[in-house]
């Protein structure tokens, strides 16, 4: 367990947080790791807060419980910061990634005293610019890969290109947009403004 990376996703039903968790598991699997990707199902309805989880490890994963002390938290809908204690149990040396147009400094007061690293990504703006619609999960997935370091970004990018090519075989015009969304999300979390951490 000590060698297992644990990630918790917070989103709303229909936003793709579960899909993002499964895609991250998929990508990590392809780099030779052991993975778990699973959602917690509550009432099944659009817009309800949902949680999804990833465990990623070089060793076999046996634990089948939710994640209470994650290394990383990803928040796909910033409005959840007001209603869900997203930083609960989040490790001090971990990080939280929030989909927002605001800066990390602006978000931190909403994090109920969390002292670790805060990253922000404007996944909505990235998605609307590259895909013309609000599909936040692709940029959030890229941000999660960049921040967690769960796999090499180049390997991830190549895999995503292959999987988009497969998924969008009949509408290849969206492949480039998705790839651009990944790169923009990488840049967002790499920018100095995104990496604030209270020592």
């Amino acid at each position, binding site marked *: 367990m000590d060698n297992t990376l644990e990630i918790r996703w917070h989103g709303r039903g229909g936003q793709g947080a579960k899909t993002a968790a499964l895609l991250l598991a*998929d990508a990590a699997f392809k780099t030779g790791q052991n*993975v778990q*990707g*699973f*959602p917690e199902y509550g009432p099944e309805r659009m817009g309800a807060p949902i949680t999804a989880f990833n465990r990623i490890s070089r060793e076999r994963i*046996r634990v*089948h419980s939710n994640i209470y002390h994650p290394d990383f938290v990803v928040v796909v809908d910033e409005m959840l910061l007001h209603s869900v204690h997203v930083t609960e149990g989040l490790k001090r040396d971990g990080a939280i990634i929030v989909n927002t147009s605001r800066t990390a400094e602006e978000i931190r007061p909403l994090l109920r005293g969390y002292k670790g690293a805060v990253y922000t990504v404007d996944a909505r703006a990235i998605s609307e610019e590259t895909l013309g619609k609000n599909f936040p999960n692709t940029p959030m997935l890229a941000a999660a890969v960049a921040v967690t370091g769960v796999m090499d970004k180049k390997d991830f990018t190549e895999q995503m290109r292959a999987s988009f090519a497969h998924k969008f075989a009949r509408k290849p015009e969206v492949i480039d947009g998705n790839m651009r969304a990944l790169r923009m999300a990488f840049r967002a979390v790499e920018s100095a403004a995104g990496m604030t951490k209270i020592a």
Partner: protein
Amino acid sequence: MKRAKAIRERMSGNEAVAFAIRQVNPDVMPAFPITPSTEIPQMVSAYIANGEIDTEFVPVESEHSAMSAAIGAESAGARTMTATSSAGLALMWEELLLAASNRLPIVLTLVNRTLSGPININCDHSDGMGARDTGWIQIYAENNQEAYDNYIQAFPIAEDPRVHLPVMVCQDGFITSHAVENIELLEDGPVRDFVGQYEPEEFLLNPGKPVAVGPYSISAYAMEAKKAQEDAMEQSRAVIAEVAARFGELSGRQYGFFEEYRTGDADYIMVIMGSAAGTAKEAADQLREEGWKVGVLKLRVFRPFPDQEIAEALKNCRAAAIMDRCESYNGCSGPLGMEIPAALYRNKVMIETADYIYGLAGRDFTVEHAREIFAQLRDAADGKIPAARHAYVGLREQ
């Protein structure tokens, strides 16, 4: 048997079972969708639509009809399977008994979900446990790998002439059915060879040898039929072991009636079924590192009930925690909480036991819960606290 090549993959427990169904290519699958097993008939329908298998899928109007159609198809001589969960299994109730007493080797993949009420879609074992006296063999899985492996083993067990009983292959709803994890698959050819062609000795559509299925039996003979059915259940022990040994040669994965995880020298053993067993093993490893001698007995085959083997496996520990993911509403204990102490007593093993109810309707069971139970077990064995009786784990405090 030659060791088959392993295919490294990742998929959910439902995908793993659907993939196994594709490899087995059963003759008939009547099914009615219910969460969390819905994906299985959905994926099998896609395999059929894509021409990958030629299974006859029968879209019925209820689970009662699904099991009725399964009984009809299997009686006619077709290899038949279905999938369900929760209320779906409950609605099959009458037919489950008919399938077993007519000695029809139907395979049912059960994705365990609680029964109402309150209405809830999440995992516990109350559906499978409710069917524990229906005459079906029941095999439970810890993860997607075991769900896949158990499914492949189910057909040779069910169809063996010494058995001729239906088999229920169970996995935990959502926890494994919807979790994507690594898995090692086998290639199609070796799976088909392992399962073999189904050649029933007697079947309805055999004009050369007419038989009756399910006729009235007068009291002068009915009791003998019931005894013969019970004999088959007893004989299934040997067949389950033989099939597991053959599967071990094929896959390299060994299966018994239960898995003994670090129990050899253990003072404290947790007896548990399904996905929570992995969580319990993690707790056992942590406590071992802290110097405790603890282990986990993961029950895989619940019917037939391996009472002597369990007693033998537990006889040298100081105390055992018996974990039920099911309430019996008997004012006393869960099903395992009753059956395991009975197995110990019948086999003259007089150790301390404690029994717990956990994980009802999807309540999470964590490594911390398992550690706390081991601590309580030690204190009970030391006489510091009374052993837990019918104690609830992780219950919300009022």
